[in-house]
């Protein structure tokens, strides 16, 4: 468990890569996060282009490291968030770069959540089918591995959609 003072301040750091559009969005519940007031939230908004993936990775690395996660876990978070962002860019926004993605790293006593929000095509994980590597190789495909990686690296991955806003939460617990 991480010393509580590390994420006590409760202040919101908002880092904005592009001017944040005015977004009227109902706050969606964050599963299991009842102590939001005491928690530390860091935000980043990026345009929906792969050009910004490295900023996303740096953002996650900074805050996961500050939260006290060991390097291996920071690495896992970095990859999972990259995959989630890539999928939003590719699938939710179908490669169109003029949309935006809102990210937040939310710390509570027992876990770190990376929350990603978009307003594109929604994804329901119940329709998801695990990829087949033999098929991918045979068909010379290059994709189909991102969701699997996210599921493997994170303690929980959750999707929900409300009022046109898709939310994906990547959850990693502090080692107990």
């Amino acid at each position, binding site marked *: 468990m991480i010393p509580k003072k590390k994420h006590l301040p409760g202040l919101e750091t908002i880092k904005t890569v592009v001017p944040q559009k005015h977004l009227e969005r109902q706050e969606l519940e964050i599963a299991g996060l009842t102590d939001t007031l005491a928690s530390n939230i860091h935000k980043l908004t990026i345009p929906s282009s*792969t*050009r910004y*993936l*490295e900023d996303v*990775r740096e953002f996650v690395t900074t805050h996961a490291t500050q939260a006290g996660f060991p*390097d*291996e876990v920071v*690495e896992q978070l*970095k*990859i999972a968030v*990259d*995959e989630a962002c*890539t999928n939003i*860019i*590719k699938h939710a926004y179908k490669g169109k770069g003029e949309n935006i993605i809102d990210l937040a790293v939310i710390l509570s006593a027992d876990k770190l959540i990376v929350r990603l929000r978009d307003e594109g095509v929604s994804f329901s994980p119940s329709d998801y089918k695990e990829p087949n*590597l033999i098929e*991918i*190789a*045979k068909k*010379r*495909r*290059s*994709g*189909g*591995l*991102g969701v*699997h*990686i996210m599921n*493997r*690296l994170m303690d929980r991955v959750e999707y929900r959609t409300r009022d046109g806003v898709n939310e994906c939460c990547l959850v990693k617990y502090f080692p107990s």
Partner: protein
Amino acid sequence: MSNFSVGFRTNENIQILDLKGELDAHTASDLEAAIHKCQASGNFQIVINGGELMYISSAGLGVFMAYIEEIRENGGDIKITNLQAKVFNVFDLLGFPLLFDILDTEEEAFTRFRDN
């Protein structure tokens, strides 16, 4: 400016690609172009030296998946060497060690190509 680059070297008939930086959905097309270039010039024996590869996501792994069959059907192979531990872990997560020849050093890859 991209934070990823591919350098080209050869050792006899073997084409070596030196990957440097971070391989993600943004930079994967650079690797794709590099492998394409090898194929176009008839080089199917490819060593990927990942010594300076700092990061890989599924988009990068996908490039290897997309090309491996064609390269093997042409009698070649993609052998991957010198991976850093944190990068190897991503390959390992998807079971790549049982799909690709992943070796510690370039020399081992050369030997494998020679012994076939």
